Each structure stands twice: as structure tokens, then as C-alpha cells.
């Protein structure tokens, strides 16, 4: 029956790897070898990319807006820091997963607050949760080190084999491997029936329920998974910098993340990664020109993107990158600017 083979071919074609996707990852790996003097900034980009991937999972696929995603980043960061500092789990990879799981538990518990209500409610609830955690971390300074942060974290070699070096080489490759593995997992998830049901919920929650999708259960699941990802990003931060201070919970961190997705676009997984690269490059560029006022220029870029519209910028200014994005995303390059990005 030709209709049947048509259906299965088309259904599976959506999840097929494109050449441009392979090129993206080869390029990422090549950069790690080509610029040995830039390990630290590249690690920074990889971490931010993973963090943005986490937000993309809930924003781009399930339509949940959040201004407090740093809550999970922070919990992951402190968990990893405390585990290493007190020698509870010395092996970094196991500690990384453990920190992610702690963040996931928090994500699961807070998801019940977040799935109620609509966009504005969600923005406020997520923001509130992050502020609460920041205040708690400051209050319990005997555990968290307060404003000084956790001091004296010493990282053991990864898997007992690869020691962290002072140039950040191990840190970069470690972060890159973690990002790639979690990306593969995310890619698998969004192309599954589960991922499809999330897109249906984002499109029309009423109709999703009317064909039998348990809307709340699906939202809780993806929010928990996203919290796990953010927790891993936070743990990577602590493990590669040997630092954890109160600013891991900061509002700026959550807001920057929105900015990354505004730049990169949502709903095709690469938006967070591309956005992270562009955001960090812009930050570097502006900081080298005007160290004090770089925020002015970032602000200007944000206003221009939102006012002119990414679609138009892509067409005229970023013609070539947009070609790549379209290749990566296929025809479903959902690069609409979320309304909440006006913040």
C-alpha cells in the first residue's frame, strides 16, 4: 500500500539529520581545536548554550514562558559545589548528574505552580521562585557562603582520568561532550510523539485536550526535564570555574537567557546554541569597545531585533546565517519572537 509507505516516510523524514546539522557540530568541535587561547570564553558559550537549550524546551516546544530559569541553574551550581566541597561525591560526572537531579526535583515541585495560569502569571511565578531561592541562599550563608559564595572548591579528575587544567582545556571538552549528549537526548525527545504532543499543546491547549492529550501531565514532564538541563548547566558552571556565588540565581541570568533565545529563535533546538554564540560574541565585542557601557549596545541590539523583527533581519542582514538556520530547522523554523520578550 503506497499510502502507508508514504505516511511512514514522511513521518520519519522530520527527524532525519540534515547535512547542515552535522556541519554545525563539526564546526563546534573544530573551534575547540583551532582557538586554544579562547578556552574560557568557549566554555562560557557552551554552558550558556546548554542553559538556553533548556529554556527552549519549555518555551519553544511547550510555550511556557519563564523569567526565573536561573532558579534551576543556581540549584545545580550550588549542588555541584557543595557535593565537591564536602567530598560527598568526588567524581565530577556523577556529581553533575546528581546536581541535575536536584534541580529536576525542584522543577517537578514548582511545575504545579507554573502550569496554572497563562503567560503573565507564569512570568511572575517563575520570577518569584528565583527571587525566593536567591534570598534563601543569602539567608543560609553558613551553607552557601552567602555573598562570598562557596570558597575552596577543588575538582577531582573526570572519571578519574582527565584532570581539570588551568587553561580550561579539559573544562571545554567536558562541557562540549555534555552539551552534545544532552542535545541528542533533547533532539530525540522533541521528535517523539511526546514532543509532538507538546507542540500541539503550544498551538492549542483546548484542542490538545479534546483529542485525549493529558495536557498538565505533559507540561509537568517537560518542565521537570528542562529543570534537569538547567541544573546540569549550573553544575557545569561550578565545576569548570570552581565557583558558586549568589549571582547564579540572579534575575540578569534569567533575562539574558531570554535575550539569547530572542537572538537565536525558538522551537528548533539550535536557536539557543546559535543565540549563545552571537550573544557572547556581541558581549565580547561591546566590552572591548566600551567596557563600561556595553549593556547600552546589547540593549540597542535587543530593541532593534524586536522592533524590526527577526524575520526581516534574517532576510536582509543575516542572509547567509538564515540559510543555515533554515537548513537546520527545515520548514518549521519557528523563529517568532515570543510576546513576553518585550521585557
Amino acid at each position, binding site marked *: 500500500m503506497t*499510502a502507508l509507505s508514504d505516511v511512514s516516510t514522511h513521518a*520519519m523524514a522530520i527527524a532525519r539529520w540534515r547535512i547542515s546539522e552535522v556541519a554545525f557540530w563539526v564546526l563546534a568541535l573544530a573551534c575547540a581545536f583551532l582557538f586554544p587561547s579562547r578556552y574560557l570564553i568557549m566554555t562560557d558559550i557552551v554552558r550558556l548554550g546548554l542553559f538556553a537549550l533548556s529554556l527552549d524546551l519549555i518555551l519553544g516546544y511547550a510555550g511556557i514562558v519563564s523569567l526565573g530559569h536561573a532558579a534551576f541553574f543556581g540549584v545545580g551550581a550550588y549542588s555541584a559545589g557543595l557535593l565537591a566541597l564536602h567530598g560527598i561525591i568526588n567524581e565530577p560526572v556523577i556529581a553533575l548528574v546528581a546536581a541535575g537531579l536536584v534541580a529536576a526535583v525542584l522543577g517537578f515541585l514548582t511545575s504545579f505552580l507554573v502550569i496554572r495560569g497563562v503567560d503573565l502569571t507564569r512570568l511572575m511565578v517563575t520570577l518569584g521562585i528565583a527571587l525566593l531561592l536567591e534570598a534563601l541562599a543569602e539567608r543560609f550563608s553558613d551553607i552557601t557562603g552567602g555573598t562570598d559564595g562557596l570558597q575552596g572548591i577543588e575538582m577531582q579528575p573526570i572519571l578519574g582520568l582527565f584532570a581539570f587544567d588551568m587553561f580550561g582545556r579539559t573544562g571545554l571538552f567536558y562541557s562540549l561532550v555534555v552539551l552534545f549528549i544532552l542535545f541528542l537526548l533533547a533532539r530525540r525527545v522533541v521528535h517523539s*510523539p511526546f514532543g*509532538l504532543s507538546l*507542540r500541539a499543546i503550544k498551538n*492549542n491547549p483546548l484542542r490538545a485536550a*479534546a*483529542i485525549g492529550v493529558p495536557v498538565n501531565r505533559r507540561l509537568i514532564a517537560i518542565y521537570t526535564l528542562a529543570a534537569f538541563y538547567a541544573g546540569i548547566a549550573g553544575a557545569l558552571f561550578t565545576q569548570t570555574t570552581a565557583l558558586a556565588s549568589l549571582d547564579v540565581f540572579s534575575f540578569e541570568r534569567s533575562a539574558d537567557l531570554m535575550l539569547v533565545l530572542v537572538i537565536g529563535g525558538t522551537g528548533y533546538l539550535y536557536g539557543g546554541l546559535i543565540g549563545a554564540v552571537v550573544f557572547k560574541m556581541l558581549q565580547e565585542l561591546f566590552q572591548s569597545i566600551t567596557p563600561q557601557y556595553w549593556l547600552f549596545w546589547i540593549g540597542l541590539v535587543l530593541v532593534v531585533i524586536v522592533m524590526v523583527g527577526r524575520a526581516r533581519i534574517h532576510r536582509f542582514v543575516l542572509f547567509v546565517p538564515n540559510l543555515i538556520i533554515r537548513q537546520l530547522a527545515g*520548514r518549521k523554523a519557528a523563529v517568532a519572537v515570543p510576546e513576553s520578550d518585550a521585557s
Partner: protein
Amino acid sequence: MTIALETRNLEKSFGGLRVTRDLSLKVMQGARHALIGPNGAGKTTVINQLTGVLTPNSGRILLEGHDITGLSVHRRVLRGLSRTFQINQLYADLTPLETIGLAVSERMGRGGDWWRRMGTRDDVNAEIAEILSRFHLLDVMTELTSTLPYGKQRLLEIAVAIAAKPRVLLLDEPAAGVPESERHDILAAVAALPRDVTVLLIEHDMDLVFSFADRISVLVNGGLLTEGAPDDVARDAQVRAVYLGEAADA
């Protein structure tokens, strides 16, 4: 004959406004039952209570003898009660293939599969192919729903409801807004619905109602005015007065 869908003394008010008044309705197994009434009679409110979007203030709803009054929307669907929407409520960014695929997956209880890629289960694929071809959607299955002609969207609307394999199907004005040229496909699709599926049709279009229904309930001001076979309803003086007034001569 068994009763497929039943409401008992259903009441719903919005503030001081009684939108559903003591409504007791019985839809028999395999029936082609139509619910008609003038604008503002409360037809949509009834549908929303039947499907679980709204909770009645009092009264009960029974599906095949089981009380479903307290069940959530998606649980009613899994119990075999499915609906179409008056205004298209489709997924603009999804293709017909994905839309039907999702409905079939959810019904089979595979909608939560997060590790399996789509298109890898033959039983799901076979059913998607069958539904897409039955509703003439195979040729447009990879196009975004938002770009489809309106008539195709209406067909998809019915196809999605059918993909949930309902035993009771609520059709909310299936032909509303469809241009004359595409109407035939819709009417044919409605007429070709499997006989064992009980259908409750909510409709304005009297031609469609009288050609399709074997039983008609007339709703006025939230309450049941009369009920009976199409011929009896058409002859009913009360109905002609409040509702059919102008349509009865046609």
C-alpha cells in the same frame, strides 16, 4: 435500545443568567441525533458541558451508563466521547500527518512515548494512512494546516475527531463557513461516518439537519422545547413559531 449519551437535569448558570435549564436528553446508540435551536439557545454551552470544558452547576452526564460528570476533557475522549469544533481549533503549525498521528498515538496510549521517533510503528502508520485517505487528505499531508483551504481544514477537523475512534461523536456545525464548492466533500464525509458511531449534530443548516438526522431535539432558552422524529418536529406548531418560522416554508 441502549442509551449512548444522556444528561439528567443539567443546569448551568453564568452569574444570574441560566444558560442550561433542567435539560434531560437521551441519545440512543447508533442514532443520528440533531440538537437545533435559535442563536443564543445555549447549544455550545451544552456541548462544552458534555465534553468537560465547563462543569454544570447541577445534574449529571452519563456516557453509556457511566457517570462522566466529573471527568476531565482528555479522559472523556479516551472513554469514547469525541467532538469537532464550530470554529476551527486545529494546530496551525502542524501538518495533517502530524495532527492525525498525534490523535492516533494518544488513543493507542503511545502519546507519552518520549524515546521512540515518530513514524516507527506500523500499526500507528497504517491507521494514519487509512484516515488520511478516507478524508481525502493524503495529497496535503505534509503541508502546514494554516495553509490549507478552508474546506480541507473542516475535513481535517472531522478526521481528527474520528481518529480518536469515538463511540459518540459530537459534530458542532460541521459545514459552517464552508464555501458552496467544497460543501459536498463535508456532507459526504458526515454521511459516511460509520453506523456504529452515535452522532449528536449541532447545526443551523436545516437542509443538513433534515437530510441527516433521524431524531431532533429543539433547544430554546437553555431548555428542551420538544423532541421527536424530523417530520413531527417540522410539523410542531411551537417549533415553527419560535424557530423554524422562516425556514419552514423553504
